[in-house]
């Protein structure tokens, strides 16, 4: 568990995510809106019946990237509080793998920030999902995170 300068909550957990605790953390007296995203394990993937999933992470870097997302939300949107939790290890069908909660004085910012958070998490946080089917297991297709361009000093002379 990590708190950012904005008092945001960022977590990687191996037990079920405590949604109530996260929502309670972001709610403040001057907030009129809390938007939450709950990503849960589907019973199928591309038409194949899923038995369960396993998530693994590069934990130290994943926490850093999740903190970066939380911090960037305060710059991009008029929001108050952010909580982001991702679960690791084995997850059964219907269980929550990722939970994001954003509070704001007004609903537009809360919706936009929550959406931005999950979209960014799926592109930049080093977490991997392995899908277990009746006839084997595969690593899920994912997204290649954007990498900063090489600094001029590191480029070959032209």
């Amino acid at each position, binding site marked *: 568990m990590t708190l950012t300068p904005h008092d945001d909550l960022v977590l990687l957990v191996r037990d079920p995510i405590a949604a109530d605790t996260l929502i309670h953390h972001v709610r403040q007296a001057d907030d009129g809106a809390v938007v939450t995203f709950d*990503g849960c394990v589907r019973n199928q993937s591309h038409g194949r019946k899923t038995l369960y999933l396993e998530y693994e992470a*590069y934990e130290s870097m994943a926490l850093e990237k999740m903190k970066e997302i939380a911090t960037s939300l305060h710059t991009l949107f008029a929001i108050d509080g952010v909580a982001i939790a991702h679960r690791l290890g084995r997850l059964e069908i219907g269980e929550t793998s990722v939970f994001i909660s954003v509070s704001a004085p007004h609903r537009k910012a809360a919706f936009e920030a929550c959406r931005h958070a999950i979209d960014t998490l799926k592109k930049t946080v*080093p977490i991997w999902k392995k899908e277990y089917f009746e006839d084997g297991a595969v690593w899920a297709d994912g*997204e290649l995170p954007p990498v900063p361009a090489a600094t001029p000093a590191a480029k070959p002379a032209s």
Partner: protein
Amino acid sequence: MQTRVLFFGKLKELVGAEQSVELRSGATIAELFERFANQKPELASFRSSVVASRNQEFAPWTTVLEPGDEVAFLPPVSGG
């Protein structure tokens, strides 16, 4: 110099989770990956669908490594 190298996802299944390697001073991330690809030829086929990090930050292949760096090779991420 000594460099700690981590692999994740399908790369981990191929190479192992963690290795410590001795590199020449001034070596790049690309050179480090090459070293493993020479030992495990299948790894070379992943080159275009892997990104690297240095000290928990995404880093281009041309990054020159420093003593004590932690490098990781990361397949496409699929959290969420």
